[in-house]
């Protein structure tokens, strides 16, 4: 049984280590865990000596008005991916099973 699930166990162990690492880092330090995109933008501001606010879009763009709406859109993006993965895996599984049942 465990022989056949090596990869699953390894992946779970990796995820577990990742979570533990996060708990350690977040409990020992006061990091805000903001996005690296924003940290990068701050670095640009620092290098150029111009405040972050002075960088205005070259092409006007829609900005989600709140974190909630942004979270919804990200969830939709992941959901779309999840639906496709589930659909295809199910389709393949069904293809494989059909000859056995009929």
């Amino acid at each position: 049984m465990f022989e056949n699930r090596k990869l699953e166990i390894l992946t779970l162990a990796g995820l577990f280590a990742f979570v533990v690492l996060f708990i350690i880092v977040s409990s020992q330090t006061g990091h805000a865990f903001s996005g690296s995109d924003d940290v990068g933008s701050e670095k640009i501001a620092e290098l150029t000596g111009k405040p972050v606010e002075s960088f205005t879009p070259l092409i006007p763009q829609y900005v989600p008005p709140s974190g909630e709406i942004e979270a919804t859109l990200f969830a939709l993006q992941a959901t779309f991916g999840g639906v496709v993965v589930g659909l295809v895996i199910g389709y393949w599984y069904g293809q494989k099973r059909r000859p056995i049942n009929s």
Partner: protein
Amino acid sequence: MHIMEGFLPWQWCLVWWLIAIPFLVVGVIELRSIMRQDREYLPLLGVCGAFIFILSALKLPSVTGSCSHPTGTGLSVMCFKPYITAVIGFIVLLFQALLLAHGGLSTLGANMVSMAIGGPLVGYGVYKLLKNTSVNIYVTVFCVAAVADIVTYVITSFELALAYPAATGGVLASFTAFFAIFAITQVPLSIIEGLVLALVFKYIIQLKPELIEKLGVFSKKQIESALRTTTGVPEEKV
């Protein structure tokens, strides 16, 4: 790894767009021809694309105290090569630029060069190197996915360093600074991404080994020996 809208001078936006566009054009042509060859490729293409959608939506915390997202391009670049991967990456980045204000239309070219083109290309190089060796195919998938992920952020650092060389130390100094922000954050994430995609690949070859074989991703012998080590009863099912 997104370069935010407005944070790249227009000259650089143009340069990266000009590099990105040929990949996009060839990718669309390849996509059409592969769909005409066999409709059975469509579900696999869906899975590969879906993982880019899922993984790039997940902002994960990292050791540096900031969050970043994996890219998920490794699977697609192995199965469908870099050009088609560029098209899928473009779709994801366009969605995020239009609706989420993560990256923008002017910086889309630069973001494509890092996430949809550069990272996957280097990952593809790793795949080519490991493909015909005795390296276990799950290890290959792990390496390709992890490398494609981390290189994406190395390229982002490079793009920003070129546009914003430091007053002292120039491009190299600011590359080091951006590298510390983007690429170091990405190390644990790329390991996780490699593991997850290797696992996904196991399920793909369990269900559809013939597709992977037909695309020439791995040989029948390699797939069978990999299945033997990770599943109980592959032979009589295939």
